[in-house]
């Protein structure tokens, strides 16, 4: 499910079944086309995963941050999100990102990092891209299930 009013009603009624959250994490700098592209691809990934696992996973609003900002302050900020989410309670929090910088600080982040090797550019409608997304989605889903 997603963070929208109709899904939240369903969530309230079936809380014990929905124990996992996915947060797409997207770096942002307005003139970098590559980041915009990655943001599009990551959004597609997040939606695909949500579609397959809609009954147990809630997709959060995208967490965005300035590319240039000091990593430590972002670690603190994302940990505040995670702490708040876990109060619900949610047991598993996954962070979905292309940004390898998170990988370096993985231990300090209080969620499971799903780091995807980045795509730099391409045509979102092409069959190769669709096949790639399909394939990666399946792998991520398998990985998530390992934690269940």
């Amino acid at each position, binding site marked *: 499910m997603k963070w929208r009013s109709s899904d939240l009603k*369903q969530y309230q009624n*079936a809380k014990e079944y929905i124990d996992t959250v996915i947060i797409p994490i997207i770096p942002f700098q307005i003139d970098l086309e590559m980041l915009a592209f990655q943001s599009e691809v990551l959004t597609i990934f997040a939606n695909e995963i949500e*579609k397959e*696992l*809609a*009954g147990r996973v809630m997709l959060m609003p995208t967490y965005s941050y300035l590319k240039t900002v000091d990593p430590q302050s972002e670690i603190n900020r994302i940990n505040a999100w995670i702490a708040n989410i876990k109060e619900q309670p949610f047991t598993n929090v996954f962070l979905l990102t292309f940004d390898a910088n998170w990988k370096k600080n993985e231990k300090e982040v209080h969620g499971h990092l799903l780091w995807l090797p980045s795509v730099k550019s391409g045509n979102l409608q092409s069959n190769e891209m669709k096949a790639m997304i399909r394939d990666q989605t399946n792998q991520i889903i398998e990985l998530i299930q390992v934690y*269940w």
Partner: protein
Amino acid sequence: MSKEKQQVSRRQFLNYSLMGVGGFMAAGLLVSPIRMAIDPVLKKTAAGDYANAGISVDDITTEPQRVDWTIEQVDGWYQSKPSKTAWVYKDDNDEIVALSPICTHLGCVVSWEGNDQYPDQFFCPCHGGRYEKDGTNIPGTPPLAPLAVYEQKVENGILFLGNAISRKGA
């Protein structure tokens, strides 16, 4: 004096016109649910809308296989191409069966033989829901209803699928 009078009347005029706008907006809110119900442009799918599922009848076997296709959809805010999925196979009478993959528990996507422990069943990865090959939910697992069945037709040897029709619980 007359100046002030003029000001007041201008303010009144403004007030009235603002109220007028508000009134229009309220009327819009009242009307829109009805409009949603009858305006054909806003309808999600018209009855009898079949889409090419992208598989030829000859390629359908007794083993369920997953087919994905996209449909054109207009829903008031967006025009989108949502993707759809079905599990398709031929049953013992050689009839084509197209099942919706959406778990009737909370909506995850089920897979044929998705768990090694349960061959010949559909398996839901989320809470272990299971279904027989014909889509009947297996008692004792979370789902309370069978998988929905797509309306279908065959044209020129190609499978076309329509709406998914839900069925009563086992």
